[in-house]
């Protein structure tokens, strides 16, 4: 390989080519004007000589005297498409002027010609030379394609898509996409003859993407409904989803997991609480058994001292109270945590009231209370667990016995409306009820602040939990001394009761 030229030699070479090209151009233009063969031949000769030097310069492009390989200068480093875009407009303008001037060149004065030469031809030729040099250098260094914006765009498309396009807010992206779509379809329409077909193809493609988006969105919607319906383990399949929708689906999946986790935690803690209360009450029951039994044995000893007998009575009463408390505590904890089995069956509320009042008849009359029943003549069927429903009534009626004013009436009513059966218990309180009904439903709250009466303060709380466990609602209202509890249960379809013995 021949040694590389130094920059000065290159500059002189470039100047020679430039001058040669200009001279050749003038000669050729002149020869066309004058139809002179000598000038034509001379012009071709100069052009050939300039071309030879140009080719030499091109072969030297990118080479430096003391350096191996191809060295890029500043203009070679500019991305080629950017470079072209920058010079394209002035270059095209210059070439137009140059071509145009060919028609009028013969009328130019000397000064005008010199000016033209300097302003139009020299820059146009310089740019041509520079372009040819950088093109040669780029080809030699194999950076013609790689050093373009297009190539960078192509190579980094994935990253640009992720980091630029997808980071745009969705509505901006949609707006840009729509504008692009309108522009492309307008462009396609303007294509001659096949424009309509192309446009149709674009519409079909757009429809395909739109349908795909909608189909995936439907999958997400169905998945959300499934999660909402309680299946928090459900996982929406995000395979092959469009990025925005996949993000949405993933968020929903996470939400499902979070709900699942929260529910599990809550269940665990409730379960633990119920377990704790059950265990503690078991541990309380064993010593309590001994207390009750030995108090009973003591009472059977022949004790003449009245004071001691009085003490023993207190001990007996309080130990019985403790027994009732532990039992109620376990029940309240089980009922409020839903840790109870509910065996639903179709049963007659009227029958239940009849049975319950049969159980309480003597206790009521013992307190001077009289029961007033307002019952429908036909059976009122509800779907509930008979044992739990009895427990609710048991608590309400025993409250009447404990807290109702002597020699008053206790009202029991069943009313039916809109597929709901309501059972109301009303009585007059012995003590003034200066308390909010909601507070009365809290555990351990009792109507008498002195807490002198027997009872655990859990009865109404248990009744409410048990009612809710059977999909019913429990309401309390207090109006002066009138206490009213209402249980509302969904009714079952009315049906004639069976009469197996009537035939």
């Amino acid at each position, binding site marked *: 390989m021949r040694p590389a030229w130094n920059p000065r030699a290159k500059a002189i070479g470039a100047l020679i080519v430039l001058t040669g090209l200009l001279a050749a151009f003038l000669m050729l233009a002149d020869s066309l004007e004058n139809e002179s063969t000598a000038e034509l031949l001379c012009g071709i000769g100069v052009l050939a000589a300039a071309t030879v030097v140009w080719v030499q310069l091109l072969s030297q492009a990118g080479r430096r005297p003391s350096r191996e390989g191809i060295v890029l200068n500043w203009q070679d480093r500019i991305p080629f498409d950017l470079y072209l875009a920058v010079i394209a407009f002035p270059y095209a303008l210059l070439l137009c002027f140059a071509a145009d001037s060919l028609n009028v060149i013969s009328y130019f004065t000397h000064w005008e010609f010199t000016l033209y030469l300097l302003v139009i031809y020299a820059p146009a030729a310089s740019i041509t030379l520079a372009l040819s040099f950088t093109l040669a250098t780029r080809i030699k260094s194999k950076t013609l394609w790689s050093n373009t914006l297009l190539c960078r765009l192509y190579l980094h498309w994935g990253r640009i898509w992720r980091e630029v396009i997808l980071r745009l807010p969705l509505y901006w992206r949609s707006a840009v996409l729509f504008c692009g779509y309108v522009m492309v379809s307008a462009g396609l329409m303007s294509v001659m003859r096949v424009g309509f077909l192309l446009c149709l193809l674009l519409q079909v493609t757009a429809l395909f993407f739109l349908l795909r988006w909608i189909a995936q969105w439907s999958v997400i919607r169905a998945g959300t409904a499934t999660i909402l319906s309680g299946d928090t383990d459900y996982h929406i399949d995000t395979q092959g989803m469009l990025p925005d929708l996949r993000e949405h689906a993933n968020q929903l999946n996470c939400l499902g997991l979070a709900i699942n986790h929260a529910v599990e935690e809550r269940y665990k803690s409730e379960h633990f609480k119920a377990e704790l209360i059950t265990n503690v009450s078991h541990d309380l029951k064993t010593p309590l058994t*001994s207390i009750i039994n030995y108090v009973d044995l003591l009472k059977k000893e022949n004790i003449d001292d009245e004071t001691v007998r009085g003490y023993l009575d207190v001990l007996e009463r309080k130990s019985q109270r403790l027994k009732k408390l532990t039992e109620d505590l376990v029940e309240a904890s089980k009922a409020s945590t839903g840790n109870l089995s509910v065996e639903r069956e179709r049963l007659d509320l009227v*029958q239940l009231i009849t049975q319950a009042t*049969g159980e309480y008849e003597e206790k009521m009359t013992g307190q001077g209370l009289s029961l007033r029943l307002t019952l429908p003549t036909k059976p009122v069927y509800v779907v*509930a667990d008979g044992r739990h429903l009895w427990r609710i009534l048991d608590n309400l009626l025993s409250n009447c016995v404990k807290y109702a004013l002597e020699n008053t009436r206790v009202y029991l009513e069943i009313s039916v409306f809109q597929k709901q059966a309501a059972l109301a218990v009303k009585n007059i309180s012995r003590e003034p009820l200066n308390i909010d009904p909601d507070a009365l439903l809290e555990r351990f709250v009792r109507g008498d602040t002195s807490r002198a009466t027997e009872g655990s303060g859990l009865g109404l709380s248990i009744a409410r939990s048990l009612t809710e466990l059977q999909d019913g609602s429990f309401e309390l209202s207090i109006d002066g001394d009138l206490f009213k509890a209402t249980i509302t249960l969904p009714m079952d379809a009315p049906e004639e009761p069976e009469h197996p013995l009537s035939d």
Partner: protein
Amino acid sequence: MMIQEVRLLYTILVCDDDQDIVSALEIYLGSQGYRTLRAGGGAEALSLVRQHEIHLILMDIMMPEMDGIHATAKLRETCNIPIILLTAKSEDTDKILGLNIGADDYITKPFNPVEVIARVKSQLRRYITLGGQEKKEACLENGGVVLDDGAKEVTVDGEPVNLTPIEYNILKLLMEHPGRVYSTTQIYEQVWNDPAVGAENTVAVHIRHLREKIEIDPASPRYIKVVWGLGYKMEKAL
């Protein structure tokens, strides 16, 4: 005292890890004339049953060294001594497990001493006195309840019970179809022979009295069960 001398023949094994409860039970059972043996755990109970002639076992469920459920299952492999479980667990599942494994009855702690004695007597009568009794004609029998329609007599575990004519008729109706649920209206129509118009409440009161006479614990009856919201039934004996 004649009765006490007879009862001295019966030996009851009391098995509980709480010594105070065992002592109290021994006092109550002793006052009724029963001989008692004590065991602190299931394993000890098993060995005592092999060494002595025992007529009834009161067994706690939660004990160290073999719990009551295991001990009951082991005992049932070889003998059919009545076993009454004493338990602090009041869950239904525990009771059902205990009864299915072979226990004859259960009492939940804290218990009423009177109830313990009543249940012990009931089990012993059925195990010893009534074990080989022949079934009489015209007799309705269910578990320990026997209704002799000829003599118009009712006995529970061999002891006669005084019933009013209405209570007797209700019991008879229920015992004719054990397991079948009768509503108050049906009972009224069958027993009073009148159409029931708002008189069902009376039935409920009579049934409550009947339960108090027949059952040891009327609140959790063995025989006359309340099916809440549906009616009443005679529980079919196992």
